[in-house]
């Protein structure tokens, strides 16, 4: 019986990525980071309300996983979702306008930060109840299998969600029915303010599928190439009809759980060490420079482009009008 394939995949095979790939990862990760910084700023200005969970630090996870699938595959996650949407190719302006609650947002301002969707890009939310997206994503995979389609569903969950009972109900059915779903556990090491050590009886979350015979791997989630490599293994497993796969992506969020979280539950040294030694963007930057793929000036041009894209998104998000008051009563039911 297949159980845990390997404990760590922190050392990846070198030179797996082409120059173009590396440049693409750099740009995509930078876009997420700049987008999130801008979102934080707009939140500070009172333009974004409610909860706002930033993805800064975790960029390699979604960029690496997205590069392992095709645009036909599905993606679903919880509420720390801005990075996933940008990685799926959703428009930054549409995402930002949803954060500001405007008509131009992906849900026309009715969903907000935690509830955004794009059928066109196969992104199915954006769900606010911890763990709720796990059976839902399993159902998306059920649909692929039911229709005989060669598609997989990436179902993201955090290290906090792994303690929800419904996660295991979903694991069981996915394994029982051999559904093409990859459970991507983004272990950023804190379930809000509770560290993995304090909430999980075993720190090895990739083993959470052992009871169901679901293979699992632990991956360095700060290394986009390691994520992509593990992601490709998981996708191949699913496409061969072997059922679900678990990836535990060890990562780190630089910001608090949400905007109002001062993150007193961890030390400044811990955060600084991650930022200085394991930053996913700096890592790719170093590969680009050391490999003579691009020079500092070239990187600066990319930075400028990304910054311009984010500035445009922020402008759109502020200028787009609030939804028409008639929207209050639309989209409750579909006319039968």
């Amino acid at each position, binding site marked *: 019986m297949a159980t845990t394939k390997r404990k760590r995949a922190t050392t990846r095979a070198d030179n797996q990525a082409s120059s173009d790939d590396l440049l693409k990862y750099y740009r995509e990760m930078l876009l997420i*980071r*700049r987008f999130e*910084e801008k979102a*934080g*700023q707009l*939140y*500070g*200005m*009172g*333009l974004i*309300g*409610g909860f706002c969970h930033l993805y*800064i630090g975790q960029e390699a996870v979604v960029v690496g996983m997205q590069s392992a699938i095709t645009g036909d595959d599905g993606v*679903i996650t919880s509420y720390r979702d801005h990075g996933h949407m940008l990685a799926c190719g959703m428009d930054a302006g549409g995402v930002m306008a949803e954060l*500001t609650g405007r008509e131009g947002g*992906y*849900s*026309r301002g*009715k*969903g907000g930060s935690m509830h*955004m*969707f*794009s*059928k066109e890009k196969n992104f*199915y*939310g954006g*769900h606010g*109840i911890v763990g*709720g997206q796990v*059976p*839902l994503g*399993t*159902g*998306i995979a*059920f*649909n692929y299998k*039911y229709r005989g389609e060669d598609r997989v569903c990436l179902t993201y969950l955090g290290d906090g969600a792994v303690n929800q*009972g*419904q996660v295991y*109900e*979903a694991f*069981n*059915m996915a394994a029982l029915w051999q559904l093409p779903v990859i459970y991507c556990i983004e272990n950023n090491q804190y379930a809000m303010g509770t560290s993995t050590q304090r909430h999980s009886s075993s720190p090895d979350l990739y083993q959470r599928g052992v009871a169901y015979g679901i293979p699992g791997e632990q991956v360095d989630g700060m290394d986009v190439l390691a994520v992509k490599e593990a992601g490709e293994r998981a996708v191949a497993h699913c496409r061969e009809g072997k059922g679900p796969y678990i990836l535990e992506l060890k990562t780190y969020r630089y910001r*608090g759980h949400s*905007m*109002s979280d*001062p993150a007193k539950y961890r030390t400044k040294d811990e955060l600084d060490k991650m930022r200085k030694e394991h930053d996913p963007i700096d890592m790719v930057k170093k590969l680009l420079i050391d490999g003579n793929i691009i020079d500092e000036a070239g990187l600066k041009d990319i930075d400028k482009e990304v910054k311009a894209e984010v500035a445009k998104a922020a402008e759109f998000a*502020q*200028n787009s*009008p*609030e939804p028409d*008051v*008639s929207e*209050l*009563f639309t*989209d*409750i*039911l*579909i006319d*039968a």
Partner: protein
Amino acid sequence: MPIEVLMPALSPTMTEGTLAKWNVKEGDTIASGDVIAEIETDKATMEVEAVDEGTVGKIVIAEGTENVAVNAVIAYILEEGEDASALDNVSASAGAAAPAAEAAPAPAAPAAEAAPAASAAAPVAASGAIERSDAEPRAMSVMNATQDEKTYTSFKTQTVREALRDAMAEEMRGDENVFVMGEEVAQYQGAYKVTQGLLDEFGDKRVVDTPITEIGFTGLATGSAFMGLKPIVEFMTFNFAMQAIDHIINSAAKTLYMSGGQLGCPIVFRGPNGAAARVGAQHSQCYASWYAHCPGLKVIAPWSAADAKGLLKAAIRDPNPIVFLENEIMYGQSFEVPDDEDFVLPIGQAKIEREGTDVTIVAFSIMVGKALKAAEKLAEQGISAEVINLRTIRPLDVNTIIRSVMKTNRLVTCEEGWHFAGIGSEIASVVMEHAFDYLDAPVARVTGEDVPMPYAANLEALALPQEQHIVDAAKAVCYR
């Protein structure tokens, strides 16, 4: 132009804070993500990160300053290529705006400047919402003219159980996307034999036995419905759906709205609801008012076999999430059902089961039978009762109820569930709002007693609303 660094809000309720510390000084070079300052609120100390890169041109608010308003300029950053002379134009205005406690006593003011679109539109939205809620007092109530039900000439006698099965089978034949999922629905042929024969005809791909895992399979089926499949989820009883209510409400009912209309959820949640017999408190409860409370759901509660068949077929065809509340005691009862492949009933339309002139009795599910028996007894005593079978709880057929009350001027509501915030409470309100002047007596509610369901036979009978309660209530509102 130098870049303004504004005092950030760290929560939607924060209006001002203390600038506790500057981590940079004028002339320092900074990059995006650098921690440049620390601010304190009454709840926490938070770091302020730079969003832009450049050189700290001017620190406008000194560290230690208290009551700095959100969105006040606290510093300027010079972009690449700018020198200090760029600050000349901005210093004066910034100085004036700085001590927020004086300059901006109303904490909302700076936000209004920073976000003209948002703040200007807000009052409109607020007043608009109020106007709309007046204009559409009950978006989920049906106030349209009631359509005449199609008449059928050929009938066959069927149990409710058979009618439900036929409805599923007919819809599954017509649409490959329809499938049934639940505990014991396939090989066991249904815990209450409602899905009998479906596995043989449709195979295990479309008649799926699940583990005992209610929240899991409810979420899974809901996810598949987002993708356009049409699951019929059978709960062995609705008591077990409490394990899954998060997905019924938070996922199935709300996603269409939250996605701005992108993701529909064509799903039917069905199974026996309400009291069975002698199974105690955890297996005997009516959930009608729980689900009917929620926008985004339709809630159906059939009584007869014809109701069951016509409404289940309509539910399966409907593009929305539907809670379909059956009743175990009704499963074995037989009724005449139209013998017609195209037989289907409209959702949202009540049926007058018996016409009368003195009092209106509104009921649903098993209580319809009790109401009809009560009407017989009342007739013997010279009271003509009109009995309305709601059939759909949400959207509620307000028209039919109101028209009847305008005729009889008296109303009794019946349900197995508890009275508090029950279906009867809603109907009483609706009648008060739309037909207050027509009422000749206060509305009477016949409900289950306000206790968990007891096991003992005598106590159970006392806890449930009986025919005699309806008779008594009808006589009371007729002052007889």
